[in-house]
């Protein structure tokens, strides 16, 4: 066999064997990875809508999913919105919860991010960022407080704190939440939130 033919043959074989092995591994793990993702979403819903016993998916489009949280008797406790968008470095996936009237934001949780460790990655930190998102007034769009405030009490009811050194990450999260809220109100008005109407 000539050298070129041997090179092509060896690389093809290495590629084929690796590919087949990986497709088997893919088949064996995909289901479990998906299950982990669903479990994580369910856990996040109970965090952003306190008291949730069961949750129902009401609406889904690309990068935007709405769930309803219900208590033990099936009473609606509010909406949980799962949204994803571009952060400073990569995709940020987050979830926040509102009351049924979309007048109050319960809390926010970050499900996935790859922001700068030590700076933008603080968006997952309760002390540095998430506690400033609790119990916010949604009667007008949320705004960013810059320079950062020291404690949640210093902020206005519709104000969110900036992370010092990671303004872009904070702004991106805020933008995603504001846009998602707008979208949530529109689809609610259009009657697309099925069961809750």
């Amino acid at each position: 066999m000539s050298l070129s033919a041997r090179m092509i043959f060896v690389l093809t074989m290495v590629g084929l064997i690796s590919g087949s092995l990986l497709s088997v591994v893919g088949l064996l793990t995909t289901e479990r990875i998906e299950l982990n993702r669903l479990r994580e979403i369910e856990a996040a819903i109970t965090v952003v809508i306190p008291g949730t016993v069961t949750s129902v998916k009401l609406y889904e489009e690309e990068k935007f999913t709405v769930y309803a949280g219900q208590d033990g008797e099936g009473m609606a406790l509010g909406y949980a919105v799962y949204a994803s968008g571009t952060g400073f470095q990569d995709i940020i996936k987050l979830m926040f919860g509102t009351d049924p009237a979309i007048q109050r934001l319960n809390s926010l949780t970050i499900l996935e991010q790859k922001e700068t460790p030590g700076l933008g990655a603080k968006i997952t930190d309760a002390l540095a960022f998430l506690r400033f998102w609790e119990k916010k007034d949604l009667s007008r769009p949320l705004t960013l407080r810059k320079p950062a405030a020291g404690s949640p009490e210093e902020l206005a009811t519709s104000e969110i704190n900036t992370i010092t050194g990671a303004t872009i990450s904070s702004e991106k999260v805020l933008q995603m939440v504001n846009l998602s809220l707008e979208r949530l109100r529109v689809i609610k008005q259009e009657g697309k939130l099925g069961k809750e109407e």
Partner: protein
Amino acid sequence: MSSKSLTAEYLKGLWDENPVFRQLLGMCPVLAVTNAVINGIAMGLAASFVLILSSVVVASIKKLIPAQVRIASYIVVIATFVTIADRVMAAYFPPISKALGPYVPLIVVNCIILGRQEAFSSRNSVGRALIDALGMSTGFILALLILSSIREVLGAGTFLGYQVMGPWFKPWIIMILPAGAFITLGILLGIALAIEQRTRRGRA
């Protein structure tokens, strides 16, 4: 072909040719994921899995691979094992997989792994390649363990998540930030060099 005894082949990875302290290879994960002991151990185990299996496979097929395409073939073999490690971690250990983030897929470009294939596995028997990979893996895990222990204890006051420092201790946040990784690694490399120089002087 190496002529060392098998024990020496294993032990060289722990100190004489330790990938982190002596060869300064694989610095990216060493600096990036050692902010907590559990992350250090998980990265060490994932990289070891890839290194050991890649070394065995490369040593077994070394005669079939033409020299011109050897690096490409090694990388495909390494990437396959990295993808397996990544998927298995995501399926069975989701919190750790999340904490390590992009660093598991990045094991593909960890110089320790390709370096051992090129420098050792492609020139030695399967058994010897396996012993070498085990030694290098142990050396890598030890280095990650030392670095992450120092950083977690000083940076968070905990070890493997358990509180080890009293209430008087104020965590040095810098130790879990990137700067802390560089400072700790620098000091450890200095200590390693000093020990090496002292033993060399002792021998002379």
